[in-house]
């Protein structure tokens, strides 16, 4: 993960590099991030943070996270994390004949499984983006509550200030958003 801080004196930049590093570690997203840009203008009190995500992960479908046993009519989920998501999806379709036998075992009739096996249960990138957004809010000064958010497939940029954001600041945010 590369951290680039601009617009601040050298000492303050170094402090912010440490701070950004610590925040990314706290949110456990360091390995998923390619680059972080931070721009600070303490005179106008405008701060911009732009984060590039390394890789966009494919959404996970039921057949990606669980194995169906046709004889027993049981779905074995690999990770407990996906069980509530699968159950909520199943119960939205049908309740009869669907039973959680064990922490990771769900009894489902074959016709129901065929109906739902292609359904998406988890969007890893959406989750990551939520964390990235949270991390950006933590990086930006607390007083900078007026925000201008730009979001693309692999990039999230937030410009913020305690005052109304000028067109100039918004353009600068756009520049950071489009930077490599």
């Amino acid at each position, binding site marked *: 993960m590369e951290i680039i801080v601009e617009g601040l004196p050298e*000492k303050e930049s170094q402090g912010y590099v440490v701070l950004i590093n610590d925040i990314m570690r706290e949110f456990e997203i360091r390995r998923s991030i390619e680059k972080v840009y931070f721009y600070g203008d303490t005179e106008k009190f405008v701060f911009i943070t732009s984060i590039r995500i390394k890789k966009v992960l494919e959404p996970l479908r039921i057949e990606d996270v669980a194995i169906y046993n046709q004889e027993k009519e049981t779905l074995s989920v690999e990770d407990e994390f996906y069980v509530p998501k699968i159950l909520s999806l199943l119960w939205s379709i049908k309740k009869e004949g669907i039973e959680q036998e064990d922490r990771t075992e769900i009894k489902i009739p074959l016709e129901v499984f065929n109906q739902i096996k292609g359904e998406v249960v988890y969007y890893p990138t959406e989750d990551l983006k939520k964390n990235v957004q949270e991390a950006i809010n933590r990086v930006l*000064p*607390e*007083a900078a509550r007026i925000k201008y958010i730009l979001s693309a497939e692999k990039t999230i940029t937030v410009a913020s200030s305690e005052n109304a954001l000028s067109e100039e600041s918004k353009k600068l945010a756009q520049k950071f958003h489009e930077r490599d």
Partner: protein
Amino acid sequence: MFKMALFEGGLHRADELEDLVDDLGGFLIQKNVTQIDITLIIAVPGEDYELVVKKAKELRGKIVEVPLAGSEITIVAPSLGKHHLPHPVCDISEYIRRNGAVTNVMGLARGVGQRINQITATEKGMIEEADVAVYSLGNFSRCLLKKTHLFMDIDIPVVVLGGPEQFNVQGLDYYVGGIGRRSQRLRQKFDLDIFDKMVGEISKAVEKSRREVEEDPLILEPIYLKKILEENVEGIDKIISPIPIVLNVDGVKVKMPLNQFKEKIKNIEFDGRKIEEYCNIYQSPYSGITILKIYTKSYFDSINK
């Protein structure tokens, strides 16, 4: 002259140390028991300090001198948000406590930002109830300059902590750089070095308060008043707070409402006078606890004439 020390060790036979302190004419300032461990903050006459060190060694405990014992310090953060807590404010608070002081953590309602930051009269009043205020501010020197009004009107000594190495403002005597906004626990060697520097500055600030008191001495030492209250006021041992009586440089605080407390000290006398004759007793308008500010010698003489 008393020496203040912190003892950390096992609960087993720790009462022997308490007895020794009592026999030497010293005082037990604070006692915290955590399962089988005990932490004691004691004050012993300087010439007998070695005896206490010897006893602590015999009990296989650790004893260190603590410069801030007997003082109450308020750590002020711009807000109680995730940006300031638990790091660095709680780390600062912990380190100060390890040096013997009683700490309060306080977040201002609107202490953030350059243009929008402000402090209310209530907040100022709450801060001024302690002996020293420690302000934990951010990384930007320009922001620090815009926040000077948060601490310039405070009537007690103020220590400011911030990111920039240097911060020179007229009227600010104590500043420690290198502790700005942090998001991880401050436990590295360089963090602890900065904390030591911070404790040095806070000690100077406490010393300044003590010197001011010495210019017109108090008629009774706060530590004696604490002992009198502990021995005579019924119900102090039943207060749930971990520190029922807090020592200040010029008095004590008892964590009991004033009406209850006044009723209980009605008949207590010390040296032929009632407790009320030694100090101004009032209720804190903010926390509801009782504050006892000991009269100075000159004031005491003037009211007795």
